[in-house]
């Protein structure tokens, strides 16, 4: 019998696909803004929301959305004020979230095992109702991340420039925070609140090893979010571990595999940049092996450079120096 024959596995896999798309979609903007750890903090805060649900008997999905969104708005306000003590304020909010969550869960009479299913995910606990909420929220988050991409890109790339472009930067900033909060709740059942941030950040970090444009980084990150999410859930079916752990480990394996490729690409690009540096630094950089002499007839475009003539060769400039050529 295949795992696909079980209703709970079907639901868990659908939730995994949606989470695998939504988390890196928001995560790309968070990483671009250098707020990679924001998802982590929101996961902590959402735990208090889950506990409120356990205590009151309301659906934890809704209470955690509500509390995480409030937390996200609080974080955004503190960030916008830009005070020196902002990081301390945020740290206290995060610790408060975890401590409040554990405390209220205890008051509600729930066990640590219940709490664990929210912290690290659990493939058997995605109810049909949960799945509907998760699906609607995930689709909204993904649609906003794609539909508002030009605006969100501008705000995350350079906030001040975006403001002088007339964009409502505060509004977009809050929107990103709220999208992150909603994603935390979407991801709660599969990857769990403590590890959700990994699924926002690791696929993006892996993706940018291989890419040079925002668009491809974004697209590849979504693919790199879905694959480990699905693989992790399937792994948890066969081996009884929390899916959060297997998803994040699978995601990290992807990063470790991409890293050598990325460093090779970077070395190549760095070499291309270094070919240009001598113009700035005036350093003496002899060109690599040279099969012919540059002259007006060699076919390489000649470029006047101060008191001498350079020849454009494969994207860099060669200048005659004694019996070899320098990179200019």
């Amino acid at each position, binding site marked *: 019998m295949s795992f696909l024959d079980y209703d709970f596995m079907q639901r868990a896999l659908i939730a995994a696909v949606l989470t695998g798309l939504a988390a890196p979609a928001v995560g790309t903007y968070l990483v671009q803004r250098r707020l990679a750890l924001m998802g982590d903090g929101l996961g902590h805060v959402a735990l208090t929301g889950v506990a409120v649900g356990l205590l009151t008997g309301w659906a934890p999905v809704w209470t955690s959305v509500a509390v995480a969104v409030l937390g996200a708005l609080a974080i955004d306000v503190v960030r916008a004020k830009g005070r020196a003590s902002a990081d301390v304020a945020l740290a206290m909010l995060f610790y408060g979230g975890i401590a409040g969550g554990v405390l209220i869960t205890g008051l509600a009479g729930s066990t640590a095992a219940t709490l664990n299913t929210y912290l690290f995910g659990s493939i058997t606990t995605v109810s049909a109702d949960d799945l509907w909420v998760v699906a609607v929220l995930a689709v909204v988050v993904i649609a906003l991340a794609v539909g508002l991409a030009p605006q969100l890109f501008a705000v995350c790339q350079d906030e001040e420039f975006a403001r*002088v472009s*007339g964009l409502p930067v505060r509004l977009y900033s809050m929107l990103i925070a709220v999208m992150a909060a909603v994603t935390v709740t979407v991801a709660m059942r599969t990857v769990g609140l403590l590890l959700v941030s990994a699924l926002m950040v690791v696929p993006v970090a892996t993706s940018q090893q291989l*890419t040079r444009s925002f668009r491809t980084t974004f697209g590849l990150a979504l693919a790199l979010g879905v694959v480990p999410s699905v693989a992790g859930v399937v792994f948890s079916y066969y081996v009884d571990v929390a899916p959060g752990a297997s998803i994040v480990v699978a995601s990290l394996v992807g990063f470790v595999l991409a*890293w050598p490729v990325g460093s090779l690409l970077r070395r190549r690009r760095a070499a291309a940049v270094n070919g240009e540096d001598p113009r700035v630094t005036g350093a003496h950089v002899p060109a690599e092996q040279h099969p012919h002499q540059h002259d007006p007839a060699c076919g390489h475009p000649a470029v006047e450079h101060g008191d001498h003539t350079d020849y454009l060769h494969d994207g860099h400039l060669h200048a005659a120096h004694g019996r070899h050529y320098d990179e200019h």
Partner: protein
Amino acid sequence: MRAAVVDVRGLRVDLDDRPVLHGVDLKVVEGEVVTLLGANGSGKSTLVRTTVGLVPAAAGEVRLFGTPLKSFRDWWRIGYVPQRTTAAAGVPATVREVVAAGRLARRSLFRPARKADREAVDHAIELVGLADQAGRSVANLSGGQQQRVLIARAAASEPDLLVLDEPNAGVDHRSQEAFARALRTFVASGRTVLLVLHDMGPLAPLVDRGVVLDSGRVVHDGPLPTPSMTLTGPPDHHDDHREDYGAGLFG
């Protein structure tokens, strides 16, 4: 008489409760190239940042194209180049993607870029001489090239006023010249430029008027001061911007 593009009157600005500008007046009319000069901490950067609405004024008035800053909405008319050492952020982005962000002031929500938008972006990239680099990641460009990307981004909305905050800081000579060429093209079409400079470099022949600030007050406003006047004293230090290449996450 030509219309005032920037009109600042009696501007007072406090940063962290410390007064930075005390009653500054600044007027830039259509087609003029005006440069703000002064030592570090003289308030020249604060003045342009307040002019484009990034820093609140404690007192006084700022008008852009005759409209008070509070009710100004035609942001596409302003091309702003913030003081930056890198055009890169935490995720890779190509030259074209960064420059296209400058076109947003002209675009509406949820609509794809039109042909005119794409052409304006191409044109802005050509203006700064980076056409052959358009598909490269900005993080892999030299500091000077990244600065030119920021200038192209400001030009992409086809603005009537360019506001540049130290566009030459830590920029190699070749990029300074490319920038001077771009500025010459821009000014030739009758548009206006307000820029903050640390030293004039190859831009000197382009500038109509210099405004020198000292400790938050205007101490000179008129034809360019002689080189000895451009700073209120000998330079106290030089910023080293060579290490400022933006590296993405993990390098």
